[in-house]
C-alpha cells in the first residue's frame, strides 16, 4: 500500500470582495456567493471540465433548505457535476478547518485535489418561527384527532408571529461576542489606543495591498464590488478615536465599531492538491500545508475568555513541529476584534500565564509586529464568518511564495463557542 503521507500544496485561491451587511450582496444567498466564488476559482485555474475530487465548505448562518449547500453550489458552477462535496461548520473556524481537512486527505492520498472554502451572508439571514409557534405547529401535526389538533392550535398567541432572527449571541451565556471580548480586553488591560492603532494598520495595509495589485489574483469582482466595501483607506487614529465604545461598560469601555469587525457578506475558496496533480495540470504550488491544531476553552464558567482558544492551540502546534513562536516570516491572526489580536500577543509574552495556563517553562515571547497581518485582516476586509479562513490561507500562501521556499507562516483564528483553529504553512 502506498501509505506514506505526502505534502499537500496550496495552489491558490479566490474570493469575492466582502460586502457590508445589507450592502451590495443584500439579495445574494450563500449559494449564489459560493457558486460565484467557485466559478472564479475554476476560471483562474482552468478547472472547468477538470476533475477535482472534493469541495468542502460551509456557512455559519445557514438556512435549513441549504442542508447540501456546497454540493448545490458545485452543481451550479463550472466544476464537473461528478465533483463530490460536503458541508462543514465550525463557526469562524470553518474555512481553516475545511483547509486542514482537505490537506490531510491529500496527505493521506485519499484525494489528489480538493477545494476548501466558506461563505456567509449576514444580510440574507435565515429567520425562524417563534419557538412557541413552532412547538404549537408540531403538536398540531402530531395530533391524531381533529379535536386534539384544535386544542393544540388553540395554544397559538398572536405575538408568536414575531419571527426569531439569528443573533450573534453565545447561547450559554447570553452575551454577544463583543461583550465577551470586552471582559477579556479589560482583564488584559488592552488600551483603546493600541486597538485603534491595530485597526488603522489593518485598513492601511489592505489598501496598500490592493493598490500594488496583490489581490488581483485572489479576488474576483462580484455584483459591482471590486474591493471590500468595509475598507477605509483614509482612516486614521484621529477618526477612530472619535467613535463611541459599543462593547463593555462605563469608563473602561474601549471597543468601538472601528476596532471591531462589522457584519459582512462574502465567500472564499482555496485550491489544494498533491504536487503530482499540480504538475500534471501545469500549476505551481504557492505554499505547502504543514500542520493544524484545534483547541477549546471553558468560557462558560468564566475560567477563560471566549476567544482565547488559539492562544492554547499555538503552543501545542509549535511543540509538535519543534518550532518557536519567532520562527515565522508572517503571522496571520484573525482580527475578530483588534483586542483579540492584542490579548493573544500579550498572553504569549506573559510569563505567569504561559506557566500556569499553557504549562510552559518559558513564555512564547514577542513577535516582530512588522510581520503581523501585513496585508490587512478582518478589521479592514470584513469577516463573513466561514469565509475568513479561505481568505487568510490564500493570501498567506501567496505571501510565502513571494518570500521564497522554506518561509513560514502562522494562522490563528478564534471561533464562537470558545474554540480556535491554528495552522502552519510553508512557502513553496
Amino acid at each position: 500500500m502506498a501509505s506514506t503521507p505526502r505534502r499537500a500544496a496550496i495552489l491558490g485561491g479566490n474570493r469575492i470582495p466582502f460586502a457590508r451587511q445589507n450592502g451590495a450582496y443584500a439579495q445574494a444567498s450563500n449559494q449564489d456567493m459560493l457558486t460565484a466564488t467557485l466559478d472564479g476559482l475554476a476560471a483562474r485555474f482552468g478547472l472547468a471540465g477538470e476533475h477535482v475530487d472534493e469541495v468542502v465548505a460551509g456557512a455559519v448562518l445557514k438556512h435549513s433548505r441549504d442542508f447540501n449547500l456546497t454540493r448545490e453550489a458545485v452543481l451550479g458552477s463550472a466544476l464537473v457535476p461528478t465533483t463530490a462535496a460536503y458541508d462543514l461548520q465550525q463557526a469562524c473556524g470553518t474555512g481553516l478547518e475545511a483547509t486542514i481537512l482537505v490537506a490531510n486527505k491529500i496527505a493521506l492520498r485519499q484525494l489528489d485535489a480538493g477545494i476548501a472554502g466558506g461563505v456567509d451572508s449576514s444580510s440574507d439571514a435565515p429567520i425562524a418561527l417563534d419557538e412557541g409557534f413552532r412547538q404549537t405547529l408540531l403538536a398540531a401535526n402530531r395530533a391524531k384527532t381533529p379535536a386534539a389538533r384544535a386544542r393544540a392550535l388553540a395554544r397559538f398567541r398572536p405575538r408568536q408571529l414575531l419571527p426569531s432572527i439569528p443573533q450573534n449571541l453565545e447561547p450559554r451565556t447570553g452575551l454577544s461576542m463583543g461583550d465577551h471580548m470586552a471582559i477579556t480586553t479589560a482583564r488584559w488591560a488592552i488600551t483603546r489606543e493600541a486597538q485603534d492603532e491595530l485597526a488603522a494598520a489593518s485598513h492601511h495595509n489592505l489598501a496598500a495591498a490592493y493598490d500594488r495589485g496583490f489581490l488581483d489574483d485572489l479576488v474576483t469582482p462580484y455584483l459591482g464590488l471590486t474591493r471590500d466595501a468595509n475598507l477605509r483607506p483614509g482612516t486614521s487614529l484621529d477618526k477612530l478615536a472619535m467613535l463611541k465604545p459599543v462593547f463593555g461598560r462605563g469608563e473602561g469601555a474601549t471597543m468601538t465599531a472601528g476596532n471591531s469587525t462589522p457584519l459582512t457578506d462574502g465567500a472564499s475558496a482555496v485550491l489544494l492538491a498533491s504536487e503530482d496533480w499540480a504538475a500534471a495540470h501545469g500549476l505551481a504550488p504557492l505554499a505547502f500545508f504543514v500542520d493544524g491544531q484545534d483547541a477549546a476553552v471553558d468560557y462558560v464558567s468564566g475560567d477563560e475568555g471566549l476567544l482565547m482558544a488559539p492562544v492554547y492551540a499555538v503552543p501545542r502546534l509549535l511543540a509538535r513541529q519543534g518550532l518557536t513562536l519567532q520562527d515565522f516570516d508572517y503571522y496571520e491572526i484573525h482580527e475578530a476584534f483588534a483586542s483579540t489580536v492584542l490579548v493573544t500577543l500579550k498572553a504569549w509574552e506573559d510569563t505567569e500565564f504561559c506557566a500556569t495556563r499553557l504549562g510552559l517553562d518559558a513564555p512564547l515571547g514577542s513577535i516582530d509586529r512588522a510581520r503581523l497581518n501585513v496585508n490587512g485582516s478582518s478589521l479592514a476586509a470584513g469577516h463573513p464568518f466561514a469565509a475568513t479562513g479561505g481568505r487568510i490561507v490564500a493570501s498567506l500562501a501567496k505571501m510565502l511564495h513571494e518570500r521564497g521556499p522554506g518561509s513560514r507562516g502562522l494562522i490563528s483564528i478564534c471561533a464562537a463557542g470558545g474554540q480556535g483553529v491554528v495552522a502552519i504553512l510553508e512557502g513553496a
Partner: protein
Amino acid sequence: MPVTTLTSAPSLARVLARAVLTAYGRTGTTLPDRSLRLESLRIDRAHLLAYQRLCAFAVGDVLPHTYPHVLGFPLQASVMSDRAFPMALPGLVHIANTITVHRRLTADDAVDITVGARDLRPHASGRAVDLVTEVEVAGERVWEGRSTYLSRGPAHPDAVEEAAAPPLPAGDPVAVLRVPNDLGRRYAAVSGDVNPIHLHPLTARAMGFPRAIAHGMWTGARTMAAVSNRSGDASTSRIWFRKPVLLPSSVEITRAAVGDTLVAGMRSRRRPHLEHLVLTLG
C-alpha cells in the same frame, strides 16, 4: 437600413397602447425601413438579479444568454408598433428564437442595442417576420438574437420552409418544475412584456386562451438554466416554441446530447405528449 438612435428606452406602456390602438388595417407587404438603436445602455444590477432569480440562472455578474433579449424588447415592441409595420402586434405569435452569444457579457459592459425587422415572408400558417437584435460593446458585435413572429392567416403557396426542430428528447425528465399561477405577472414585471394573455385568466380568456400562459422567452430561459451552467459563455441557441404553458402547471425538462449540441425540451407533466418547446444549445 437607416438607424434612428433613441435617447432613452421607449416606454413600453405607451408603445403597446399605440400598437393596440393602431392594430386594425395593417395590410402592408413591406417592412419599415428603419432600425431603432439605444446606445451605452448600462445594466441595472437589481433588474439583472430579478431576471436571474426568476429564470433560475446563477446570480452574478455574467449576463444570462437570454438577458439581452429583455434589454432589446422595448425596441422590438417599438418597431412592431410603428405604423409602417405590416402586422398587428396583438395576435402575433413568437414561434422561434435564435441567439448567438459571441463573447461572455457582464454587468459592467455598456451595450449598444439595435433592433430591426427583417425577412417578411409567407409561412405555412400565415406570414412570418424576424425581429433582429444586435448588441455591440465598443463597436464589437457581442450578441445577436433573431425572434421569429407569426401572424396567422391563410397558407401561402410560396411559403418557405422554416428550419425544422429536432425531436423533443424522449425519456425520463431531468427536472420537474412547477410553473406558478403568478409567473406571467412576475415575468411581465421584469421583462416589461405586459401582454394580457400572460397576466390573468380573465384577460387571457378575452384573447382566446383558457387560462393565462407563460411568456415563451421565460420557458426558453428556464429550460436553458435547467440544462446548462455555461450558456452565458460564447454559444448559440435555437428555441422552437410549441404549445403554450397554461398557468399554473407542472412541466418536465428533458435533455439529450447530439455531438457537441445539447437538445432540451419542455413538455407537460400531466400530458407528456403535449410539447411546449424544443431548444438546442451549442
